[in-house]
């Protein structure tokens, strides 16, 4: 099916799908991102007998925003233009669909300049008796929604070839054109039809258009389609164009003949175009007709299993290990501000505010949290059934800066981060599902394929260790850009993990920011000296040494213990340690709660011989920082007894003070820290022209 379906509550199931729409977004960011979200919404609408979309996610990987104009390769767009366009595209499509965009991330890296990544996700909810579908012989093939045009011909093919300086000229016809209101009408009509049991199966028209939708539904049966019946945007399409067009906002349903009239009437009442274009048969063959002539007669078996299996070599040579750089002096407030201002770490408020993240009224923990409602939450929580206290936490993890260094570790780190995010807000790790999106370079290069094999194996091992199933996924290969001079630039191997966790009682959710003075701060999890790929190193422009590594025994244990503490109401704030490590986590908690803190690095549970740089800035996984009431300390310490933990300080005052066994390293007022964190995307705030580049 389009997405895996998991249990939500006594009446409903839920599902999650995340798609990529990279190549269209590279040459037309606004349209590419908009149709990306439109496509994944149809995936969810086509899951089971149709799920109601309740939340969207968006993750973007783009080039550095301060890239010089002269450094943009011919055929590529400037990263600022790309980011502006994809944000506007998601905004205009997602907001018009009435689906809250609640979670996301943005990563910046030199090698995303020619080939940015756009991941669009959607979460759906459906009644428990609507999870399974099967078209039947004799059912009508009905296409609903948008009309078919010549847009998006060979869209799927375009997604799987290398981008180049010629792409805009050669492939722009492969980019689809979106129209959210047509899709919104389709959604409204289909959910009514679903509840009236008017169809037996449903599939979205995505890659391959009608060809893949009809043949997926008719795989076991056979189908007969009359292509001249398909409503067209304009005359002049050839029958192959009609069959493979990826024009947007179309779905196919199989309708028992006795329900056809009712379905067509319902669609008319909802201003949705619906047309019978054929029948599901029992021939086990695909028969296509155009104006009375048979134009195709193929076995379903051949269409589905006729492609020979590929065998490609995969190799992997670990990059040469460089010694860890010797950092001079001791960490200071300047270092902290520099890391907070890195675009990867900095506030994404400019983006989040443009998305309606509250429509449908289900939001429980919004993407912006804290005293001034502008701090970075770990995950978003929604309660999709209004009035019910069962929720869903939605989070994500990715670490492309580790991809070149160690693809397997990158995969484990992304999984750990996604799970930390949902658990930190109140998600149940025993009822969490994850989803993978591999975005990779060309699989024709054995080294790229080798990295993919290693990352896939690591996903398997981590999923088993965490007891967390992968319920769906999607890969995007061939993310490379060939410059005019013929040099091919591959993106770094990038794995996005999205997590969807059940929240048993939303009233137990915690937000990340400090709540009150005089409370204890506990650090859960072990800190190691591995700093390679860290944001500290990125801010200093250095590399070397080890990358952080997930402990598949301690990791799951830490998640369970933190989840238990939250569920017992013993934690008043919880933030996972991720980009920028302990330093960024405590700074974000302090300035978002407008409460100071004092911590002592000498107390941080860490490997021997670790220095203060690593204690502050290492991005060791499976760690959380908790705020705990003094009265609850004994109970908290008892529950933490099986995992690495320590009380590293307390809340209070108006400054962030970080000492190392008596020596004060950092003593900063909170507003300048927040200002640094809010400065990272300032260049986008001031870049207003083209805001409505639709």
């Amino acid at each position: 099916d389009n997405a895996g379906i998991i249990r939500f509550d006594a009446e409903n199931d839920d599902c999650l799908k995340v798609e990529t729409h990279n190549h269209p977004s590279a040459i037309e960011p606004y349209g590419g991102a908009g149709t990306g979200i439109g496509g994944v919404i149809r995936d969810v609408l086509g899951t089971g007998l149709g799920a109601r979309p309740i939340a969207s996610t968006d993750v973007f990987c783009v080039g550095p925003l301060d890239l010089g104009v002269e450094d943009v390769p011919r055929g590529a767009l400037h990263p600022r233009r790309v980011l502006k366009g994809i944000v506007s595209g998601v905004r205009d499509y997602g907001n018009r669909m009435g689906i809250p965009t609640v979670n996301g991330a943005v990563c910046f890296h030199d090698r995303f300049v020619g080939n940015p990544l756009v991941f669009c996700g959607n979460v759906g909810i459906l009644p428990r008796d609507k999870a399974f579908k099967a078209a039947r012989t004799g059912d009508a093939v009905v296409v609903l929604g948008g009309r078919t045009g010549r847009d998006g011909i060979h869209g799927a093919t375009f997604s799987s070839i290398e981008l180049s300086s010629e792409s805009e000229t050669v492939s722009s016809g492969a980019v689809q054109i979106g129209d959210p209101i047509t899709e919104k009408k389709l959604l409204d009509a289909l959910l009514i039809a679903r509840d009236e049991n008017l169809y037996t199966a449903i599939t979205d028209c995505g890659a391959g258009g009608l060809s893949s939708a009809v043949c997926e539904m008719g795989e076991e049966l056979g189908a007969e389609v009359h292509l001249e019946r398909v409503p067209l945007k304009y005359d002049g399409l050839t029958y192959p164009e009609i069959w493979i067009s990826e024009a947007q906002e179309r779905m196919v349903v199989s309708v028992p003949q006795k329900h056809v009239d009712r379905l067509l009437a319902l669609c008319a009442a909802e201003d949705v175009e619906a047309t019978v274009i054929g029948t599901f048969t029992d021939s086990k063959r695909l028969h296509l007709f155009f104006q009375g002539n048979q134009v195709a007669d193929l076995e379903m078996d051949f269409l589905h299993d006729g492609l020979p299996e590929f065998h490609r070599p995969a190799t992997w040579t670990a990059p040469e290990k460089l010694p860890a750089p010797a950092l001079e002096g001791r960490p200071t407030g300047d270092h902290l501000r520099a890391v907070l201002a890195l675009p990867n770490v900095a506030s994404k408020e400019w983006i989040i505010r443009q998305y309606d993240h509250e429509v449908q009224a289900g939001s429980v923990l919004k993407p912006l949290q804290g005293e001034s409602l502008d701090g970075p939450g770990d995950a978003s929580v929604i309660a999709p059934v209004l009035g019910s206290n069962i929720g869903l936490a939605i989070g994500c993890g990715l670490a492309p800066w580790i991809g070149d260094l160690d693809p397997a570790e990158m995969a484990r780190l992304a999984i750990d981060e996604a799970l930390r995010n949902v658990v930190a807000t109140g998600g149940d790790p025993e009822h969490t599902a994850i989803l993978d999106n591999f975005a990779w370079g060309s699989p024709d290069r054995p080294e790229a394929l080798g990295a993919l094999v290693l990352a896939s194996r690591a996903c398997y091992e981590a999923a088993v260790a965490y007891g967390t199933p992968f319920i769906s996924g999607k890969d995007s290969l061939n993310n490379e850009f060939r410059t005019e001079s013929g040099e091919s630039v591959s993106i770094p191997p990038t794995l996005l993990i999205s997590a969807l966790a059940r929240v048993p009682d939303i009233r137990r959710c915690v937000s990340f920011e400090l709540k009150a003075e005089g409370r204890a701060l506990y650090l859960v999890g072990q800190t190691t000296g591995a700093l390679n790929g860290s944001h500290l190193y990125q801010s200093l422009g250095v590399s070397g040494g080890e990358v952080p590594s997930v402990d598949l025994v301690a990791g799951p244990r830490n998640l369970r213990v933190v989840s238990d503490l939250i569920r017992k109401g013993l934690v008043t704030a919880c933030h996972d340690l991720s980009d920028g490590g302990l330093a960024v986590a405590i700074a974000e908690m302090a300035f978002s709660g407008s409460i100071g803190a004092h911590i002592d690095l000498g107390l941080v549970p860490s490997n021997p011989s670790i220095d203060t740089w690593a204690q502050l800035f290492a991005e060791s996984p499976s760690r959380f920082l908790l705020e705990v009431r003094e009265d609850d300390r004994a109970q908290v310490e008892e529950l933490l007894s099986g995992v690495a933990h320590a009380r590293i300080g307390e809340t209070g005052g108006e400054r962030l003070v970080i000492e190392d066994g008596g020596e004060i390293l950092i003593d900063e007022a909170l507003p300048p820290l927040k200002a640094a964190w809010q400065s990272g995307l300032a260049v986008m705030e001031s870049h207003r022209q083209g805001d409505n580049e639709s």
Partner: protein
Amino acid sequence: MSAPRVLVLRTAGVNCDFETEFAFERAGGQVDRLHLNALTESPQQLLGYQILAIPGGFSYGDDVAGGRVFAAELKRRLADVLGSYLSEDRLVIGICNGFQVLTNLGVLPGPYGADRVPTAALVDNDSQRYEDRWVHLKVRTSKCVFLEEDDQMFLPVAHGEGKLVLEDTALKAVKDQGLIALEYVSADGGRAGYPENPNGSIAGIAGLTDPTGRVLGLMPHPERFLLPTQHPAWTRQDPLPEHGDGARIFQKAVRYFS
């Protein structure tokens, strides 16, 4: 008297209809969600309702301007019955896109007349972009049945076209007649600058009523703050209130008929 009947009117692109239905149901109303096409089939149905709600969303994609096409469709299909509805003791609430529909129809600031040219419009935010944020509001009118004078509320806005502009004479009339229903204010109740006034509305106006007090149009979304956990910083509150601020609007409307 029994629970008032509430019509939540939807059409292509309306997307806050479910939560608006939930809001009125929670307040004790008896709610139907109906498509404009279904209402058009037999317009007299409208007179079977005491409260008409036009929810938020992007009706018809907000093509031309926010709410413009929906208003034109209402005028074309239902002008007569709408006139009868408004002339009697019944209520209308337009939220966000619904407020845009009511200004385009000329229902707000009113008084409504089938041939009346609109005197108010909701135009692009000063920031030139869509924004989702929470705002402080103060009720400035004593005559609107949905509101209690001087009440303060904290509600979310989410729109790109929410800046209210009025013709000079209309602005004066609105002020003189006390039709300013809601004003954006600062957290301490003072004058609001950006972003407390999120769109640059004239005189900080967030909502209007009409001379009868039976119509309310507002840009903020009261239906998004009914439950305590919808507050953006509820995890900082102890104890939690029973209702969100927005619930009062729906409760007052339903109680008007009891």
